[in-house]
């Protein structure tokens, strides 16, 4: 590590807020990293992120900073792993369905694999062992099966429809 001041990169969100972050943090965003890999002579101009809101970007930057600091600790990996888990659970808990979708779309656009995995797991946990009707409401999906088609599949896989959790909304 050199003692020079770390390079800063400026990111500009869809709602026109600018975030100045350390280069190491910006490189956690796959899309930004690819941009610099392909444009090594890029100037210090802010990088526009037209698909990301400032609310999402600040969550994402916090996430990347936290997980970078955990990785930097390296050697006490078991406690770091535990702290990472607690952080991820809290991240899911503090997002309702709507803000979770928005965050997933932003993280997908920015190509941050670990964070996307965490968020997808969070969604899976929300629909695990739920009824078909609950999941349709959850995703806002219209049933396009005829009653006959639906009855046939239900009868064929009857056991998979038994013992689901009661719908809580």
């Amino acid at each position, binding site marked *: 590590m050199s003692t020079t001041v770390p390079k800063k990169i400026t990111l500009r969100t869809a709602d026109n807020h600018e975030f100045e972050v350390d280069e190491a943090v910006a490189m956690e965003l796959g899309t930004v990293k690819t941009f610099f890999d392909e444009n090594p002579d890029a100037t210090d101009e802010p990088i526009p992120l037209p698909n990301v809101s400032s609310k999402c970007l600040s969550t994402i930057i916090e996430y990347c900073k936290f997980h970078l600091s955990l990785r930097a600790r390296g050697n006490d990996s078991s406690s770091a792993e535990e702290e990472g888990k607690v952080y991820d659970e809290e991240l899911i808990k503090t997002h309702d*369905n*709507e803000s979770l979708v928005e965050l997933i*779309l932003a993280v*997908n656009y920015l190509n941050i694999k670990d964070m996307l995995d965490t968020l997808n797991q969070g969604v899976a946990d929300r629909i695990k062992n739920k009824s078909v009707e609950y999941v*349709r409401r959850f995703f806002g*999906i219209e049933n396009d099966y005829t009653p006959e088609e639906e009855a046939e599949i239900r009868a064929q*896989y009857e*056991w*998979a429809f038994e013992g689901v959790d009661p719908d809580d909304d």
Partner: protein
Amino acid sequence: MTAHAPWNQLPIDILSSIFERLDLEDRIRFDLVCKQWRTNLKRTPQLLWLMLPYDPSSQYLSFFDMYEGKVRKLDLPRSAQGGWFFGCSKGWLFLATGTNVDNLRIFLFDSISRAQIPLPPLSTISSFEENFTARRSGWNPAACIISGVEVSSFDASQCIVATTFYDNNKILALCKPQDDRWIIVEGLLPDGYFMEIYPSLMENYMPAFYVKIVK
């Protein structure tokens, strides 16, 4: 579409990634959410279940779920309990129940849908009783005489079943699941040779097996 539609914006890759994290029961159930889910969500082979030895007195099949690292149980319908598994092909298990010629029943079984497709009685094979009575009674007759079995396709309405036998190892017995009796192919081999059957990948074009002639 209803008001909270933002989930609809999720690309199919993300939905698939969410889906992969669910259990088998959830995946089967959520096929019913809508037709697009049933056809478009990618099925990764992430669920790897090893079938554990079946205890004929139990009411379920046990599998070791390599992904979750635990033993999973799938209930067996009463009519399939106490049987003997004598093979597997194209996702179908071959199951035989009964302990003597009179109550022997052989069928294809799918442990997920629990479908049972009956096969013609082995007693329609002329040499069957003679071969079986030479064996110990009280054992499942199919277990005693069948050495190999394959289906030509996972689609039970289209498939052909081929069977070879320990004692009478020069004959090949063929049937469609809905047939009344087995068709016997024999007289093909000189003394000292016998047949082994293997699955073929030609199922998209025609029902087919590979038959290997062994000395």
